[in-house]
């Protein structure tokens, strides 16, 4: 089978399978989850059984159902965040690359200032000031993450802007948005696409991390980071409850990374190795 005209490698197939399963679970959560997202159905931390395949959590909710619903929120929030961050970062990055030196300098220095503050500290500050509603959370991470996207988009575009076909468009009298959209963006896409996968991973981990600290997605919504936190104390009793959401986080990250590796290898594939050196 081929995807976009390229044959996935074995590891890429593993990644596609993992991500596919989680995305499927996220989309069809209400139909496949055996119990409701917030329903307390049994005792605290009851062990795995035929009724509760992964056991129950700290207030007796079915862990399997929570993991399935958690895919929805965690992946959903990370995806929306990454899309927003790319929309913002790419637009600004390309704008900086084609605009005058002053605009470029202004944008780049603002980004530098933001990059100089540790991401987590910055996020904690904003979220504790404005409260962690889903909207604030998504917006905060998106804006912070877009600074990294900006860097890449600008450096990719700077190499395209100097090419003659961009100059042709300028000489023709084309406006800036047209030049960005039609001449530069299509040629900047390949590296941006693989970066999208990587940034998705980071954002996904970041959302989980914030939830673990209690500033991310708020209960009763299920999310993997928050689930690890809720069940963290179970470790003390030798119970496996926090393992499952943690495993989901790890698997999802690995899965996306495997796919990204494959996409990167297509982009950077040499025309062939030298046989006789």
């Amino acid at each position, binding site marked *: 089978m081929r995807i976009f005209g390229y044959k996935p490698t074995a590891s890429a197939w593993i990644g596609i399978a993992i991500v596919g399963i989680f995305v499927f679970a996220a989309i069809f959560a209400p139909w496949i989850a055996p119990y409701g997202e917030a329903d307390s159905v049994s005792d605290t931390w009851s062990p795995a059984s035929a009724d509760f395949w992964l056991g129950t959590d700290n207030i007796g909710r079915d862990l399997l159902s929570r993991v399935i619903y958690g895919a929805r929120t965690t992946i959903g929030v990370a995806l929306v965040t990454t899309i927003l961050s790319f929309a913002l970062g790419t637009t600004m990055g390309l704008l900086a690359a084609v605009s005058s030196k002053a605009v470029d300098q202004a944008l780049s220095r603002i980004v530098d200032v933001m990059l100089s503050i540790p991401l987590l500290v910055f996020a904690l500050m904003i979220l504790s000031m404005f409260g962690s509603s889903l909207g604030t959370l998504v917006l905060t991470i998106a804006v912070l993450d877009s600074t990294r996207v900006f860097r890449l988009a600008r450096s990719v575009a700077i190499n395209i802007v100097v090419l003659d076909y961009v100059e042709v468009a300028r000489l*023709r*009298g084309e406006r800036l948005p047209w030049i960005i959209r*039609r001449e530069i963006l299509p*040629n900047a896409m390949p590296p941006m696409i693989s970066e999208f996968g990587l940034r998705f991973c980071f954002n996904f981990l970041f959302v989980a991390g914030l939830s673990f600290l209690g500033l991310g997605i708020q209960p009763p919504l299920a999310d993997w980071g928050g689930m690890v936190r809720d069940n963290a104390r179970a470790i003390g009793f030798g119970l496996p409850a926090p393992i499952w959401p943690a495993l989901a986080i790890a698997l999802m990250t690995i899965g996306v990374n495997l796919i990204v590796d494959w996409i990167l290898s297509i982009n950077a594939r040499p025309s*062939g190795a*030298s*046989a*006789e050196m």
Partner: protein
Amino acid sequence: MAEAVLKLTDLRIESIHGVVLVDNISLELKRGEVLGLIGESGAGKSTIGLGSMVYARAGCRITGGKVEIDGESVRDLSADGRRDLRGKRIAYIAQSAAASFNPAYRIIDQVCEMPVKHGLMSKAEARAWAVELFKALDLPDPEKFGNRYPHQASGGQLQRAMTAMAMSCRPDILVFDEPTTALDVTTQIEVLALIKKLIHNYNTAALYITHDLAVVAQVADRIMVLRHGKMVELGDTKQILLAPKTDYARALVSERKAADKLSVEAEAAHGEPLLNVQNVIGQYEHFIAVKNVSISVAKGETVAVVGESGSGKSSLARLIVGLLPRRSGSVRFGGKELPPALKQRSKDELRRIQFIYQQPDIALNPRQTIGEVIGRPIAFYFNHPAAEVKQRVAQLLTQVGLPEDYAKRLTTALSGGQKQRVCIARALAAEPDLIICDEPTSALDQLVAEDILKLVKKLQDELGVAYLFITHDLGIVRRIAHRTAVMLRGEMVDQGPTPKIFSPPFHPYTERLLSSVPEMRTEWLDEILTQRARKAV
């Protein structure tokens, strides 16, 4: 000395996709002999050059044949054995010397590296030998020249330093891959003369790869004509130049000869003035690139601007279109003053001047179809509906000699010459009065370039468009320009009708430029050098 020092037998090189790049080439090279390899790009010249060191570029494989150096079969050696041979017995000199030096090290360190690494000389010996080579290659201040970094030397000097680097191990065989192609004509002469002297003095065998017959005529004893990886003809230099046996070699020779002839129809067709540039000064941040230049172009006229690289001819073009801000002077177009900056110009002012670039590869967006590329100016300037744009695109494609159904193809699916035709069609789509051509043929092969020039000329006859033609190639100027302007270091040193510029009395710089263009005679280089030496005395 009948024994061949380098012997290739049925050398075959294929790409990893199975395309045959070099098809059973055999050649022998004796000590002190120079064999010229000539052909267009894609003929397999460089691949043979590298193949003679049993080196294949990424994506290529040597699949058959024998390579012998002094009777020793190189393909049978281990990778280490081959590495030991390279540099020591056979050395390679690339086209772009600037790209072959590491900018972070001094030149002397890079020249001395090889003999020391190969264990042939001590550091001090290598240094002394390098200085001797610098002296032989006429580099300024040979004792101290090596202390410079690559960016502190000019292109011609670097090319000579690279030759010194190749000579550092006193190899038996040198492979020159277009060593003068990137140089200006006036510099090319010096480098050619020195290469010739060096080969002669040290009795080295050499493969000389080039696309220019006139250049190879000066240095080679024998010439091999190549096409599509196959040998077309092999013979003595004189025989190839004067009496080529095959049709392809004949075509190459006659095209090159045509370049030397003065066109008859290039008479001043001075009509109504279209572009009038008066005393402009153009400046990059701290560097004045165009100094007080005036030039005019009439309707339907071709004006050529010639000069070496760095003479400011491209800057002048950029100043006219508004990419380089002018500090003073005026640019009038169609009787109206043009604002200095691009942004201040109206859509119609922009439409009437179009630009054609040197490298069609980067002048076309690789993610657009040819229909989009040519259609955009039509839609942009004239607001035609989609159906009409499509029709006009088809018409333009036919006009530049491409099939109509190319409109659906991506620009990357074309050859260099075809791409340049698309660029011309794009310029024509705006229905301009003036097209500025910035070296439009210098990135193309000789025969392809010839076709493009014919097309450019034909379009002028049909549409009456005027050209400002920027080039360093005097052969082109002679054939297509009604008037010619010569630039040197940002100034215009000579200007007038082409026949007048190209006949005595010459301006001294024009004469120097003219006499530096290699001619298709084997004695040319020696003659010109003695002539110059006499003048200098």
